[in-house]
């Protein structure tokens, strides 16, 4: 038999999550203190799943941002087919010949990431820019997908 949410008594469940949240906060604190000396906190790079991205809906346009540090225009390839967006990128290792490597957290990196945009877009008018290691795509929606203001009919 399936358990219904209500059977738990929601208050108790709530408290459990709150306690878990507190525990997590404590652990984060402990880690951030530890990091001050040793640099062992979660590092901002998990390239196995591709770059960190962000999609914003500005009404008339969709804006996609992706973190691609160390890549130049020639290292990136963006394609749009219908509302399927694909971003490919590649970066080489710096050539540091004759150097001893003390720490290696960055690395050569190659990714291909595909997204389904949430609405129909006008691919011909899409624009891309690259600044400070952030790829920014501005993709206009088709007119039908843009928001419409609905006026409230004044009935007398």
């Amino acid at each position, binding site marked *: 038999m399936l358990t219904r949410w209500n059977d738990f008594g929601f*208050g108790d469940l709530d408290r459990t999550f*709150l306690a878990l949240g507190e525990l997590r906060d404590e652990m984060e604190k402990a880690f*951030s203190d530890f*990091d*001050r000396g040793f*640099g062992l*906190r*979660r*590092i*901002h*790079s998990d390239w196995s799943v591709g770059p960190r991205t962000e999609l914003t809906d500005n009404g008339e346009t969709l804006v996609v941002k992706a*973190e*691609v*540090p*160390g*890549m*130049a225009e020639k290292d990136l390839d963006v394609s749009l087919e219908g509302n399927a967006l694909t971003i490919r990128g590649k970066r080489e290792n*710096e050539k*540091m010949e*004759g*150097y*001893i*490597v*003390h*720490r*290696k*957290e*960055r690395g050569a990196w190659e990714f291909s990431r595909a997204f389904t945009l949430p609405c129909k877009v006008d691919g011909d008018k899409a624009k891309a820019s*690259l*600044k*400070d*290691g*952030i790829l920014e795509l501005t993709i206009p929606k088709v007119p039908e997908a843009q928001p419409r203001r609905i006026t409230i009919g004044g009935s007398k």
Partner: protein
Amino acid sequence: MTTAAIEKNKDTQNAAIEQAKQIQRITPAVDIYENDNELVFVADMPGVPKEGLDVQVEKQELTLAGEVNEHNRYERSFKLPPTVDVDKVSATLKNGVLNVTFKKAEHAKPKKIQVNLLK
């Protein structure tokens, strides 16, 4: 729910909102290289403009920091070995990658010692 419980709940929520307003500190990925002449730090800091960079050396401790916006900031510190000359440092920022290069102090560079064998 009692009034006290509701109040406590409110406090918890407000605390969460305050926390969200704070700056998020991100630990950037860093590579460190060294040869006889220099010590090189390379950090990924996508989204940081030149004006947002903040590289400091204090008491042989290097801090690499960069502000993306008012809510997001990269920051990481490293102890520098006494072999580097903290006054001889150069930094570049390209495509969101920060490179900080220290020259080694003269006394720390390896010297070749000529050995004359006695015959």
